[in-house]
């Protein structure tokens, strides 16, 4: 029995870390950290939606994340407010709206802490299915978009002149990110999703000579953090999601202190 839930936690964590590596790399390259944060803050609204419509809560979260991604895409075209201001409004608006909506449902009691910081030890087989199918779809989509997305990341107008369908690629990427954020929620929780996206990618940067290498390394570093975090959490009886993030921070710090030429000849 113990083995079972630990194994599920391990598989779930590794699955999420694998997906987070490549997506996190793009989040870092395109400076979308606040964007990821904003999406994840809407999760409670998705939970409320799931209860109202009597659908799977993960489906509710995915739907709300997708809607918010569309909203953000359009809101960034206006020039009245800086985009970090817009993101802040959406993030905290969505979080508060979610809390208020849930408080109206008197017969619903949810474990708020589990949604805020994740509950990896309570991962069910169904959750594992969401992580691997959702994550697999997201990874396949990203692989398909890789080249045009990289071109857009380098210079949007240049990509457009060279015939890349910029708007369509951006749309699809935002949709995939929203999907990733939704399936990661269970493992590290809405407040820490962005951490698992950006910390492994930032750690990988120092050791990567090209974009693909950085994405793969970020996945591996994320997996390492998951293993260390699970072990630490079990050993010292600490909350698992935060322990994984602490482990990721420690790996980041060690990588930062490591001599630059350790794995990569100086470029």
């Amino acid at each position, binding site marked *: 029995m113990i083995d079972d839930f630990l194994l599920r936690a391990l598989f779930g964590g590794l699955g999420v870390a694998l997906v987070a590596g490549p997506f996190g790399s793009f989040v870092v390259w395109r400076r979308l950290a606040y964007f990821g944060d904003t999406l994840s803050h809407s999760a409670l609204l998705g939970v409320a939606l799931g209860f109202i419509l009597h659908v799977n809560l993960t489906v509710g979260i995915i739907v709300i994340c997708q809607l918010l991604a569309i909203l953000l895409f359009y809101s960034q075209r206006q020039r009245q407010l800086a985009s970090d201001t817009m993101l802040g409004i959406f993030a905290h608006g969505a979080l508060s709206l979610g809390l208020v909506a849930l408080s109206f449902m008197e017969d619903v009691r949810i474990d708020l802490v589990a949604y805020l910081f994740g509950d990896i030890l309570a991962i069910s087989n169904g959750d594992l299915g969401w992580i691997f199918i959702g994550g697999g779809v997201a990874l396949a989509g990203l692989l398909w978009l890789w080249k045009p997305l990289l*071109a857009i990341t380098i210079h949007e107008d240049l990509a457009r*002149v060279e015939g890349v369908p910029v708007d369509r690629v951006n749309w699809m990427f935002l949709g995939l990110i929203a999907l990733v954020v939704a399936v990661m929620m269970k493992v590290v929780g809405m407040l820490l999703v962005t951490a698992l996206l950006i910390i492994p990618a930032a750690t990988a940067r120092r050791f990567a*000579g090209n*974009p693909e290498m950085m994405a793969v390394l970020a996945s591996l570093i994320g997996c390492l953090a998951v293993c260390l975090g699970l072990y630490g959490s079990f050993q010292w009886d600490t909350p698992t999601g935060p322990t994984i993030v602490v482990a990721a921070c420690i790996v980041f710090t060690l990588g930062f202190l490591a001599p630059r030429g350790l794995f990569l000849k100086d470029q």
Partner: protein
Amino acid sequence: MSNLGQPFLEVSAVELILGKRLLLENINLKVGAGEILTVIGPNGAGKTTLLRVALGLQKPTSGTVRQRPGLTIGYMPQRLHLDPTLPLTVRRFMALACNNDQGKILSLLAEVGAAHVIDSAVQTLSGGELQRVLLARALVREPDLLVLDEPVQGVDVHGQVELYQLISRLRDQRGCAVLMVSHDLHLVMAATDQVLCLNRHICCSGTPESVTNDPAFVELFGSAAVQSMAVYVHDKDHHHDHCSTCGRRSAND
């Protein structure tokens, strides 16, 4: 063959209003085969905006932009805002546009004098190196028309002369037309066939010699600036040679 007489790019009566600001007013221009047209003007004159309209990146409020059917454009943006976390070598930057054709990458970089930076990270390039690499990238698709946004930005004076000469040479060797933007008044005059002076509307246009004598030009840039340029225009052949020698000497800076 029937396309021969048609201009590569024709902008007619273009007006652009964004929000309540009038950015471009009644703009007409034509770029024909093998021709270099330079748009000059003070900061905020709408030079980059005009390029974006010409490229089809920005839809004009009214007026038309016509590209010759089948026209291939090579675009050199003003700068790259690459995040330092993106590990990208010059080789990879070029490969993205040409399906990893290594021979082509090498020959293009050699053509613009940037072969030595092929394995450097794009973020570590000097201003002049970056401009050359961007120019090589613009050439990847063997364009009929090069559109260059401030091609000598961030480059010292010697490097500027060299880059303008490189652009003229590319035009001569490849027979492509060039539409470029510059806020520099002096050096560009020696490298262009036609000048278009922009300050939201077209103040004056024509050959470098005719434009510098135009009262509208003097009014836009001030008489002091114009007098100092007379040297460059009238003395351009001498200036050209003089600088190409000293430019070559400092090519490795």
